[in-house]
């Protein structure tokens, strides 16, 4: 009897193999769940990996130089760079209207006057490609942002007028280092050679020009670390108002922007994998139920519980391995199309490379989840009694008493939490997420139990045979009610939630082009031009919606503390943030609030007498963030003139309205004599009207700039539709997995009903009767499952909208109805496809082949 203790692995593997030969199709369904789940995981992780690598390896190209310095002051000076051998390029940039003589159109752009060989790493990408070089050949040539050229229908060779100078368009600008999506929206870039900047006569005293310098260190000393140097000198730089950026900083920034994208992708991969897990659990559950009789026979012949358990564990493990392997393979292929899907949103060119960590991780995850999620149904194999051979399968009602099962459930819970944590990155969220999944299972189990009880309790004995038979199928022994409701329900819930969230995200970025919102902003108007411009506007039958003065200023001190004081104060606690000092303030003055504002603290008052300091108002959040309290003294530097004020109130501002909103607000009677410009806001009916008006404005007042919100929205719309495409494409992964889970659960369930259908057929049931019974049963199951799933998804979407996206979730009835109809009809269709084999073949053939 001692040979018993040794496990004969060879035999176990042989049995596992033999047994699988005739179960291939069923095992394949199980495998396919794993394939898609792992494919999504590997594709997304490989892509993220490659993207991260590429950001690292192309970090220099991201900045284009070793160091970038910038300031509002053209004479800024950072001593360190002079001690190092370097090359330098200069870029002076400012917003200005440009004019296209070809079609008499104008547009606000960001003019970048460049001198030097920048970028030193990477390239300014242009079309034609060599325009990047030839525009620097000393002629009057310009590179114009691609989207602008398309919008205004201008081509390479046409000319563009900037100020007083006409430039020949040498090429269209596709991308350059230091170009953000947001900035290009309002003011797309136009590059010109720096030496023609003065000729444009656009730069006058008070013009808002930003001066950048790009350095390349040609011979850095041994061990020279620019990051460390910059960190050391950060206070000096701050006081002088010089901003700096190094390759390392740019790399981190780019990585951070990418993190949000990665989070979303990870979530998609996670949901796909989770659906795969649900598929595994339900497939194995049904599979094992089918195998129980074989297990009992093996037990009769003397196989131990452990051996039989191992046979199926080996089988599932091997199938899991095959699925994971194929999934990893598929994922690696899918990865190659992801860079095309994301296209221009990617900061760097993503290379397609095998990511071994992702592939290996996917393989291991796949095998691990196949086994983990198969274990719960598998362990019942250990307890299968040999008595089944004599008496048939008894209702398994002490399944929950098995301690090991509970251990496995805890293991699954832990796995979901840990995996969610790895993918989402927040422990709290992961726990909430996992608890919700657990709750969903509980809810679905309850729905299944309750509906079975309900049907039994109120059984419609007077209904026709077909109805009674199909209803009774829901609760009779060997019913599929619980498994199918759980898997289809959870699948529906995940798919629908993803759909709702996707719709929510898309609607959140969609901008309502409301009809009476202002959509044209004219700014940089000189005081003496205000009246004339208002007249011009009215002569075009356009409303003057707002006309506000803007004064630029800086903060000299707050409660007597200057920027130097703040920077040198090292006590962390009362350290003021330096940002209010560093900002160039654009404030307006008036004595009342506008529509988009609300007082939060204090009140708006006019000074009662000359001695009293005027009271200004700041945006509430900004004041809080920078620890500026009501009553604090703020001294402003209004272009050389100090003006003392106190903080009288704070306001909440609705920034989403297209209006001139101001962080800082002065009372009237203080700034009237200060140098200022004015902003006028109007609304045009359409693009043509806007273009016509703009042309007239720019012709008469060359110093004035116009922002056409409609134009921006057009561009934005373009980008957003691309984003929603990306979201939809990625969500497709999860939806596919969900459908597959649904299909495989239903296909597998057929083995439960086949014997019965054949017996009915033998007793003379017609094709139609069997079809009706089966489709009704699947109709009940599909309906119950999809409705419960929808309820869960409504709950989940509401929670996600409220807690994660800070918005309210308003469910659309149409998608709900569509989901219900499609899930239910898919269930019925597959169910019917299952029974087709039964009714079209002679009963005997079916009996011999299927019932064993």
């Amino acid at each position, binding site marked *: *009897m001692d*040979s*018993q203790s*040794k496990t*004969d692995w060879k*035999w176990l593997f*042989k*049995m596992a193999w*033999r*047994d*699988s*030969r*005739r*179960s291939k199709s069923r095992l394949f369904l199980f495998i396919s769940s794993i394939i898609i789940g792992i494919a999504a995981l590997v594709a997304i992780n490989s892509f993220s990996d490659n993207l991260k690598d590429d950001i690292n390896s192309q970090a220099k190209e991201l900045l284009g130089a070793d160091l970038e310095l910038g300031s509002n002051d053209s004479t800024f000076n950072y001593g360190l760079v002079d001690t190092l051998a370097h090359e330098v390029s200069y870029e002076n940039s400012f917003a200005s209207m440009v004019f296209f003589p070809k079609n008499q159109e104008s547009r606000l752009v960001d003019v970048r006057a460049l001198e030097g060989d920048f970028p030193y790493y990477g390239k300014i990408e242009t079309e034609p490609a060599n325009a990047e070089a030839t525009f620097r050949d000393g002629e009057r040539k310009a590179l114009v942002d691609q989207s602008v050229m398309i919008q205004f229908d201008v081509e390479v060779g046409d000319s563009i007028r900037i100020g007083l100078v006409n430039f020949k368009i040498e090429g269209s600008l596709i991308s350059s280092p230091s170009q953000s999506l947001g900035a290009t929206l309002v003011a797309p870039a136009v590059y010109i050679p720096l030496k023609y900047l003065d000729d444009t006569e656009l730069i006058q005293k008070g013009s808002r020009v930003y001066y950048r310098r790009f350095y390349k260190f040609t011979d850095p000393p041994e061990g020279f670390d620019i990051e460390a140097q910059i960190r050391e000198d950060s206070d000096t730089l701050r006081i002088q108002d010089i901003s700096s950026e190094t390759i390392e900083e740019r790399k981190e920034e780019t990585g951070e922007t990418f993190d949000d994208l990665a989070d979303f992708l990870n979530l998609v991969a996670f949901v796909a994998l989770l659906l795969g897990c649900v598929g595994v659990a339900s497939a194995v559950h049904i599979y094992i139920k089918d195998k129980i*009789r*074989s297990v009992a*026979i*093996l*037990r*009769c*012949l*003397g*196989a*131990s*519980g*452990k*051996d039989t358990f191992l046979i199926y564990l080996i089988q599932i493990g091997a199938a899991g391995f095959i699925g994971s392997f194929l999934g990893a393979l598929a994922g690696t292929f899918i990865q190659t199309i992801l860079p095309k899907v994301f296209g221009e949103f990617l900061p760097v060119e993503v290379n397609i490379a095998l990511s071994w960590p992702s592939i290996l991780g996917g393989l291991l995850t796949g095998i691990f989840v196949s086994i983990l999620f198969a274990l719960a149904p598998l362990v019942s194999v250990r307890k299968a*009694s*040999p*008595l089944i*051979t*004599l008496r048939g399968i008894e209702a398994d009602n002490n399944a929950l008493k098995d301690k090991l099962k509970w251990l496995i459930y805890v293991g699954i819970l832990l796995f979901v939490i840990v995996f969610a944590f790895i993918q989402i990155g927040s422990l709290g969220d992961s726990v909430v997420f996992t608890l919700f999944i657990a709750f969903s299972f509980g809810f679905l189990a309850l729905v299944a139990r309750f509906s079975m009880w309900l049907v039994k309790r109120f059984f419609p004995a007077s209904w026709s045979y077909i109805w009674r038979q199909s209803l009774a199928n829901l609760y009779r022994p060997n019913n599929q009610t619980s498994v199918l409701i759980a898997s289809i329900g959870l699948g529906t819930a995940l798919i629908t939630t993803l759909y709702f969230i996707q719709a929510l995200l898309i609607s959140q970025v969609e901008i309502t082009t409301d009809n009476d919102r202002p959509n044209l902003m004219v700014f940089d108007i000189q005081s003496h031009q205000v009246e004339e411009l208002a007249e011009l506007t009215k002569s075009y039958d356009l409303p003057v919606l707002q006309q506000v003065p803007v004064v630029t200023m800086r903060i000299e001190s707050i409660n007597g503390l200057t920027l130097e004081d703040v920077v040198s104060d090292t006590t962390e606690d009362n350290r003021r943030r330096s940002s209010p000092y560093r900002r160039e303030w654009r404030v307006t003055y008036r004595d009342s609030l506008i529509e988009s504002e609300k007082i939060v603290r204090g009140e708006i008052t006019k000074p009662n007498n000359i001695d009293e300091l005027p009271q200004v108002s700041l945006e509430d959040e900004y004041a809080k963030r920078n620890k500026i309290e009501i009553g604090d003294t703020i001294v402003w530097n209004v272009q050389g003139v100090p003006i003392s004020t106190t903080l009288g109130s704070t306001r909440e501002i609705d920034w989403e309205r297209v209006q001139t909103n101001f962080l800082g607000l002065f009372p009237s009677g203080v700034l009237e004599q200060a140098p200022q410009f004015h902003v006028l806001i109007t609304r045009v009916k359409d693009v043509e009207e806007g273009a016509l008006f703009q042309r007239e404005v720019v012709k008469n007042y060359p110093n004035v700039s116009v922002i056409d919100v409609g134009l921006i929205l057009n561009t934005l719309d373009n980008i957003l539709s691309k984003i929603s495409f990306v979201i939809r494409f990625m969500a497709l992964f999860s939806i596919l997995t969900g459908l597959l889970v649904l299909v495989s659960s239903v296909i597998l369930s057929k083995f439960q009903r086949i014997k019965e259908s054949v017996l009915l057929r033998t007793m003379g049931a017609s094709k139609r009767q069997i079809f009706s019974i089966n489709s009704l049963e699947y109709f009940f199951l599909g309906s119950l499952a999809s409705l419960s799933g929808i309820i869960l998804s409504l709950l989940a979407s509401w929670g996600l909208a409220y807690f994660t996206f800070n918005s309210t979730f308003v469910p659309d009835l149409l998608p709900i109805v569509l989901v219900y109809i499609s899930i239910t009809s898919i269930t019925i269709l597959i169910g019917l496809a299952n029974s087709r084999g039964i009714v079209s073949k002679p009963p005997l053939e079916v009996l*011999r*082949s299927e019932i*064993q």
Partner: protein
Amino acid sequence: MPNILEVSQLSKTYQSGTKALTVLSDISFSIEPGDKLSIVGSSGSGKTTLLGLCAGLDRASSGSVILNGTKLDSLNEDERARVRNLHVGFVFQNFQLLPTLTALENIMVPMELRGEKGIKDRAMDLLARVGLAERHDHYPTQLSGGEQQRISIARAFSNRPKILFADEPTGNLDEETSVKIESLLFDLNRELGTTLVLVTHDNELAKKTDRVIQLKGGRIISNSLNQALEV
């Protein structure tokens, strides 16, 4: 010679809800090695239940079963499985072949479970013995009921059991096939000295065994030697 099977004061009670249903009560008997015993009785009298208890497929409510000197009641499920594998063969009324294994593989399983080597030849011998050698790579669904029963008998003998239990082995078969199967059982019993315990409705078959136990309502109402067959 010690008894191969000793059953004493065996009872089995099923609890369904609050009601207790006694299916077997106070059953005692014993068999010597090499004997042939048949159990007869009307439907529902407890024959299958008794057979299952003797083979260690189920646990009794009280009383004991000693098989080949081992007290089954004190063993756990795996230990009983081991006893079955080493000493017991079982032929079911409804064959119970493993559907995913070929005829040959079905016969090999008990030997493989014991870790025996060179079993293929023996399995082929057994197959030939039941007249199905050329069907060795067929799956159960490709065989008729009688053929499946023959495979199942070959399987039952494959581990050279000391005792073989057969629950209505010919219940499903026509007379001609039944006779074939019966003689197969008896031949193997004679050649290998296997003790035979048969459940049957067939009086003719019962007469061919050494001893007949008659059950009624879960009790033994007679336990008699079969004079006719004593040779």
